[in-house]
């Protein structure tokens, strides 16, 4: 195991929760609803996983519980943003505050208790002889494989099916979609809920593959980084894959440099992902200043049928 392979594995392991959260964000925002509650949803997914897994010892049950709870929170977000047409930014912020508070409250009883197990690895002997990547494939866990599959499925869904066409129509121009007989509100509800559930799964992956005990606020801003990644990836699942792994690599790079005994204090290494997020967004903003950024056109504006523009 040379340094590069180790770094790649670390990047994938740190990048998978980011990838899942980014995919969830992409689904939500493609439907035209801003999702800033990612941090809170990830925390809720993580704490639910920990509690259910520690209490029941059943991994599948824990994952299902995390998905169910965050889907429910996604419905709250939909209700506020789709039905009540509330301010989507504020609703997301409320979700983040509520999620971090509630997760800290619920997690108090299991704080620091190690989880009874981890994610099963999928050993694929067939892939072992593959140069460079063979090493990796033998070490990936189920959720990582699931996230890779999901990238493909979502890419096909968004760009190559009529469902995806409807989704993009609703996110870009809900009034036209409505005229065409697409059920705008229903589609928004479904995708916001599914997106929230994915972000919750990202939180679950965080504790199962990355930090195996619950600690208050363990996501440390990764939910917000995912919000940024949705923009880097231009709302596109395939790009999300590369962006998430790039950030996973940054995340683990600091840790690796420390192991090598670098003179830079670790605090500065930990700043890298946050600072790079800002810099990359600035670079993209500068580069695309006269080009469309890929933003769903109606992102953030609630759809009201009676209104004519």
């Amino acid at each position, binding site marked *: 195991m040379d340094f590069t392979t180790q770094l790649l594995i670390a990047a994938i392991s740190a990048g998978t929760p980011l990838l899942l959260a980014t995919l969830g964000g992409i689904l939500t925002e493609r439907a035209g609803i801003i999702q*800033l509650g990612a941090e*809170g949803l990830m925390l809720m997914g993580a704490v639910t996983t920990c509690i259910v897994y520690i209490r029941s010892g059943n991994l599948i049950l824990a994952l299902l519980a995390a998905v169910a709870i965050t889907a429910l929170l996604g419905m*709250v977000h939909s209700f*506020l943003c789709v*039905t*009540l*047409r*509330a*301010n989507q*930014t*504020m*609703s997301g*912020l*409320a*979700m*983040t*505050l*509520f*999620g*971090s*508070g*509630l997760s*800290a*409250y*619920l997690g*108090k009883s299991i704080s620091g208790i190690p989880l009874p197990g981890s994610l099963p690895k999928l050993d694929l002997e067939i892939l072992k002889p593959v140069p460079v990547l063979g090493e990796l494939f033998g070490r990936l866990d189920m959720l990582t494989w699931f996230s890779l599959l999901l990238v493909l499925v979502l890419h096909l869904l968004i760009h190559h099916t009529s469902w995806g066409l409807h989704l993009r129509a609703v996110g870009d121009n809900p009034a036209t979609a409505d005229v065409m007989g697409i*059920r*705008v*509100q*229903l589609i928004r509800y479904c995708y916001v809920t599914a997106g929230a559930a994915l972000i919750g799964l990202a939180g679950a992956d965080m504790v199962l593959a990355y930090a195996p005990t619950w600690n*208050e606020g363990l996501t*440390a*801003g990764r939910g*917000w*980084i995912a*919000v*940024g990644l949705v*923009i880097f990836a231009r709302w596109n699942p395939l790009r999300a894959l590369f962006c998430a792994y790039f950030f996973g690599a940054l995340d683990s790079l600091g840790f690796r440099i420390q192991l090598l005994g670098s003179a830079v*204090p670790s*605090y*500065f290494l*930990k*700043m890298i992902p*946050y*600072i790079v*997020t*800002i810099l990359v*967004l*600035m670079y993209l*903003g*500068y580069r695309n*200043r006269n080009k469309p*950024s890929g933003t769903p056109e109606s992102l953030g504006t609630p*759809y*009201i*049928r*009676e*209104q004519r523009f």
Partner: protein
Amino acid sequence: MAGRSGRWYSLRLEYDSSRTRSPWWTPILSVVLALLLCAVFIAANGMSPLVVYEKMFRGAFGTSYGFTETMVKAIPLLLCGLGIAVAYRISVWNIGAEGQLTVGAMAATAVTIYFPDLSSFWSITLMLVFGTAAGALWGLMTAVPRTHFGVNELITSLMLNYVALLALDYVVFGPWKDPKGFNFPGSPMFTAAQSLPVLGSTRLHIGLVFGLVAVLVYYLMIRFTRWGYELRLIGANPTAARYAGIHIKKHIIIVMLISGGLAGIAGMAEVSGVTHKLMQGISPGYGYTAIIVAWLAKLNPLGLIVTSVLFGGLIVGGYSVQTIGLPSSISEMLQGAILFFLIAGDMIHRFRIRRSA
């Protein structure tokens, strides 16, 4: 679904977008509903919500000590909330008050470390100037990406919060660590000359005056100056404001400087008035709580004073339930719930039940 056919027997929900003013009691109702919702979670944990809430209320407002503590917590909330309110006037979503407060506290501490022997007047003045400047700079770092690179200020300001907290960790564990502090991460204690004056034997410091003066200035500026008028205009209709020749970019930078500067003052007041040294956890999330403080007050100066005292009480009450074995995060949970009900309440009254023909 309200928008589709919403028929339930012969009743129909109708959305009336012209009803933008929600009634005065929505904030009060949202607090009550949030208390009810969190009561469910408390009860599920096997505690009596009534006991918990009573404990919180008594802890925050029941004794004179509790009340002054509440006021102490209200000071940074008022200053940060005010800064946030200024930015939100023109829909600049600054959620970086936490980081701006942190760098303000750090800059104030830097004055005590590098100029230890100044007179009381010069210490406090320099700390105030540096604290404000650092906070304002942190705000600027959010504003410029927004105005010149089209980067959403939400993400930038939040990322900078994490950067600020890591920088704080670095200085309290590293270069500024108190050599006589038994290896505890924190700066040396401030001298009397570097501390803000307090009221009698309480911990209530002069920062309260900063806060009240800032509120008054905010009110007068918004109400009576050209700048305030332009802010209100941008807030009401940005497109019209742009056609009227108002430089929106310039205003975004100004409000972020003010926003960050005020949070910086809050950070300076916190180290110089309350903790008397820089350490980890200098802010128990003031910057985030201040978002709700501003929103609950509907950005109104008088409302800000009321809500910051209320939320100061919520933080103190959160500490006091720890004595009966509940985590203080209960107050954070309440805050999130209050915000949920508040934004829902702002919209719900726009719906009317109509008999459909």
